[in-house]
């Protein structure tokens, strides 16, 4: 397993943080059209888990996918312009911010909560059957763990011993629903027992921890020890979407309390303690900001899909050449 370098992980998290902020600005300018789901505070999950996958490992994500996608290797250009509905987006601008497919980077997300888990079983089954050196990772939220899809998929993956790492990104809320109140068990990891799996929980705000656990589980899965279910404990610092009336379900104090534990500050502090030069980190951050400014300018220049492109590929026309009845 590759050595874990905190500074590199910190840089990746910084990129996601700023990418999320850029996206939020564009959303506020109404340049992103669908509901935009901010990722601030959860970067250690995307970087630790999604970032630990190889290019041809498959990642299935959610309605809050942009940072998962970037960490997996999708280009910033494709992800941002998909949210902006431009033809250069992952799905040619037809899917928008919650549902796009990037087959070249083995990344797929969708906006129906929980529905990516059953799809993961098929990917895992194909990987196993074709004996490929790949794994499937399926990431979903605490709310998704209440769906029937979660249960049916975990049971199927477990009885067929499929090479899948199921990552439950517990950010404490499903929209306005606090996990404590809507998930019956104390920790979602406890559901593993119902599928004959071990209970694995990780501090989702500690990027070294998430990366270490991710590497281990991916490694074990490659060796045929899958599936695994891991719960990463984190916190959504922003509203569910831009404009979410947060006060209806949580207090400022709670948010501030969690802000103390947010992953970037934690990583930076640790790096400084380890003697890394603050100026070096600031320069790193500056470079990212510059990169994203350029990205923004570029993105705004991109074209929208045409109506012809929008209604193309609804289905594959039936081949007239097909052999007909004798």
């Amino acid at each position, binding site marked *: 397993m590759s050595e874990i370098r905190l500074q590199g992980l910190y840089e990746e998290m910084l990129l996601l943080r700023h990418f999320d902020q850029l996206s939020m600005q564009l959303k506020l300018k109404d340049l992103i059209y669908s509901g935009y789901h901010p990722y601030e505070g959860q970067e250690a999950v995307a970087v630790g888990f999604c970032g630990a996958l190889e290019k041809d490992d498959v990642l299935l994500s959610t309605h809050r996918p942009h940072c998962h996608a970037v960490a997996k290797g999708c280009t910033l250009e494709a992800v941002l312009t998909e949210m902006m509905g431009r033809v250069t987006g992952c799905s040619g601008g*037809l899917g*928008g911010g919650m549902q796009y497919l990037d087959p070249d980077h083995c990344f797929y997300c*969708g*906006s129906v909560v929980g529905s990516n888990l059953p799809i993961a079983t098929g990917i895992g089954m194909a990987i196993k059957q074709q004996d490929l050196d790949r794994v499937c990772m399926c990431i979903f939220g605490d709310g998704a763990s*209440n769906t029937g899809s979660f249960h049916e998929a975990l049971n199927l993956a477990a009885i067929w011993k499929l090479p899948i790492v199921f990552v439950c990104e517990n950010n404490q809320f499903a929209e306005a629903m606090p996990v404590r109140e809507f998930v019956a068990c104390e920790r979602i990891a406890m559901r593993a027992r119902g599928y004959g799996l071990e209970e694995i929980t990780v501090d989702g705000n500690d990027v070294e921890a998430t990366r270490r656990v991710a590497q281990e589980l991916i490694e074990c899965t490659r060796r045929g020890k899958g599936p695994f279910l891991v719960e990463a404990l984190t916190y959504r610092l922003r509203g569910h979407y831009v404009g979410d009336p947060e006060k*209806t379900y949580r207090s400022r104090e709670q948010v501030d309390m969690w802000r103390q534990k947010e992953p970037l500050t934690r990583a930076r502090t640790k790096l400084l303690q380890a003697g890394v030069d603050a100026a070096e980190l600031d320069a790193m951050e500056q470079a990212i900001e510059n990169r994203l400014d350029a990205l923004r300018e570029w993105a705004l220049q991109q074209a*929208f*899909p045409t109506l012809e492109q*929008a*209604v193309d590929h609804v289905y594959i026309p039936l081949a007239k050449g097909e052999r007909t009845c004798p």
Partner: protein
Amino acid sequence: MSVITYGEAIRQAYQEEMRRDRNVFLMGEDVGRWGSLYRSSKGLLDEFGREQVKDAPISEAAIAGCGVGSALMGMRPIVEIMYIDFITIAMDQIVNHAAKWHQLSNGKVKLPIVFKTQGGAGRRNSSQHSQSLENWFVGVPGLIVVMPSTPYDVKGLLKSAVRNDNPVVFVEHKSLYSDKGEVPESEYLIPLGQADVKRAGEDVTIVATSWMVGFALKAAETLEADGVSCEVIDPRTLWPLDKETIIRSVKKTGLCLVVTEAPAEGGWSGEASSVIHEHCFRDLKKPVKRHCSIRTGIPYGPVLERQVVPNVESIVEAVQELVTQGSLIAV
């Protein structure tokens, strides 16, 4: 009369019915704390408490089944499925149980459930959040299907749906919540199964549903200027259908355009068109024309999604083609 939004009209209907009958309760994802996605239940949690306003986990099958069970016990659940696209997860409970238990009990069991959801495009939500699936339920014996297009209708019909003892699938439209319209201060009900002539006319009958009704009315204005008088009918209830009102109109005009947001194939437009042909064949100057969305997933973004769905201009064109002498769809 006071002018309120479609969303507010829904809220008032909830409020009046929940005050009238404590057995009426609303259940769904974030109907409480948030007051539901489009705020149509805002403030109700405070007034009625958790007994009548229940936030439910992301478990559409369980929520729907919970509706069936509680109705069996004499309660009157309003089950909200946030997007009609997610009703795909609740179909077993709605189709195999809610729709069938009254008959299976020889009429002993009544299931007064309102399965309330919203569909359609116009909010830039892309293909997994913008579908028009209402005709699925028209095909299921035991269900009543309602699709209101105005604040006045949604309030009166929702109140009737809550009081009705059948399971009712109540399909709102996401693009209508902020539409404003006149609604009486005093209480009123609109009977289920009764169409509404939204505009009287002589030359062409336009049968339109939900979001399409407003477009049809605007198109009718434009056409009026060109000297074409359109009668616009909103069935409001897709099943049982008020055939009389539609037939009366088509017998008068002899020309009919059916406008739905759902693509033509497999959608409700085929049902409407068939019924009209069956009853008005000799009166029709031309076959009923269906004007529906392009058969595609709803694309993302503000421009494209409106291009694949019927709009004022396209409705005007469709009517003009209909009134133009001799023009007949070629094979």
